[in-house]
């Protein structure tokens, strides 16, 4: 009710300052958003790469197909494993010829070992799981060598972890800055209404009632800032796509909504701290 009228009056009182506040919130969240976008895109890339993560256990030359097939069935039973396929010596040769096309002559008299090709289930493609499965496959007598691109899997995961940690750290510091800025602007609004607030308290208005317009104001600025940030992030992504010819993924809808709500939350927290401190100064 009258809370909205108070908000309107506060916003009109200092339009430039209020615009500045919204913009600052927007930039804080924008930085967060850009970082999130990097993380989302690394994640998308990782998912694609992960799908190809494969463990290949090579058999010693001349091993019969039967024990290899038996081993493959056993491997198929591991909880992490999605599929375990036997590739015989002939199949390996055929595949190599097909992949190499015109150089297929090279394999005319050649030899390629038979192998068990293993794909892991989603969620079990991290370095530790891959290594665990590879180690177990080493256990089969006929297995000569197990390959699984250990190096680059670890690298990719490290990259993702760095992105995650940096994102959280940066996001939190920006959130802190946003809270402080909102708190400061709300403080100015409180000062402008200090007399009114003291009279409210005198005649018995509750803290909740006194706080309400300030929380609303903080929430409104946060919402606006959040929406602005989403728009800025979106256009940033579009220009990257356009100028760098880089295919990117944007946040899912629920994360967009979450981002705007995060803005609102920042607004509410900032103003709540500010007005709470003011009210506590007098009993």
């Amino acid at each position, binding site marked *: 009710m009258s809370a909205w009228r108070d908000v309107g009056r506060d916003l009109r009182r200092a339009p430039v300052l209020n615009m500045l506040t919204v913009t600052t919130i927007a930039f804080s969240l924008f930085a967060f958003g850009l970082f999130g976008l990097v993380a989302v895109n690394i994640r998308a890339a990782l998912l694609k790469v992960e799908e190809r993560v494969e463990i290949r256990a090579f058999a010693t030359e001349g091993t019969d197909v039967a024990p290899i097939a038996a081993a493959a069935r056993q491997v198929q039973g591991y909880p992490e494993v999605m599929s375990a396929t036997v590739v015989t010596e002939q199949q390996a040769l055929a595949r190599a010829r097909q992949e190499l096309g015109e150089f297929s002559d090279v394999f005319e008299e050649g030899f390629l070992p038979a192998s068990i090709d293993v794909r892991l289930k989603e969620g079990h493609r991290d370095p530790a799981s891959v290594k665990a499965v590879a180690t177990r496959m080493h256990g089969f007598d006929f297995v000569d060598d197990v390959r699984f691109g250990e190096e680059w899997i670890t690298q990719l995961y490290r990259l993702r972890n760095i992105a995650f940690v940096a994102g959280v750290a940066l996001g939190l510091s920006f959130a802190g800055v946003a809270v402080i800025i909102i708190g400061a602007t709300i403080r100015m609004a409180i000062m402008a209404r200090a*007399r009114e607030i003291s*009279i*409210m*308290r005198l*005649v*018995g208005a509750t803290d909740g*009632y006194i706080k309400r317009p300030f929380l609303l104001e903080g929430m409104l600025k946060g919402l606006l800032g959040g929406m602005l940030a989403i728009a800025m992030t979106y256009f940033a992504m579009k220009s990257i796509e356009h100028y760098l010819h880089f295919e990117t993924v944007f946040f899912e809808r629920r994360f967009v909504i979450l981002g705007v709500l995060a803005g609102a939350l920042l607004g509410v927290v900032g103003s709540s701290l500010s007005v709470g401190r003011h009210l506590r100064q007098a009993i």
Partner: protein
Amino acid sequence: MIRLTHVTKTYARSGTALSDVTLRVGKGEFVFLTGPSGAGKSTILKLSYLEEMPTSGEVKVSGVSSATASRNDVAKLRRKLGIVFQDFRLLENRTAEQNVSFALEVIGTPKANIPNKVARALTQVGLASKANALPRELSGGEQQRVAIARALVNDPFLLIADEPTGNLDERATRGIFQLLREINAAGTAVVMATHNLELVRSSDFRTVELDHGKIVFDSAAEGAAS
């Protein structure tokens, strides 16, 4: 109704404002608080509406104790008190009527009930004809009447007045005092801090005199000469 029991109040910066004060104010009473500047009059009043909390001892007002009251309890208590000051404390950009209705709006009084209550309060203080005037368009005495109307609009059982005539000339002072007597006669207790000894002598209300944070005279006490 107001009960200060062995109350000591120490301010962090200026030391002891009240020391071991015990005071009772009954229903419907009219009490003057007198004493030199800095004696502790305002402090007693602030303790009475729980704006300040005692350093030791207990303040109990209408069943609300300083020892246990939450901020919400204090807010609820103040809805049943009227408080006025020397400097009126009106909102400059609101009319007399709006200043009075403000006190009802902010405690969630249903909108439909507000105009009647406001009109009644303004009539009671003799300002019905100036309902639409802004504070700056009113004399000091009239502004204080608006403040009193705001204090009365919730039918308080107690009116707390801290030097309500401190900024007024003699004529306006008489008028405001007359108004406070009427309010008291209608059943509301009044506690009024004042420097105006003439006013105190002109009536035979109870007088409590403070000096250096102690009660040095109470006309209601046994053996007090009247």
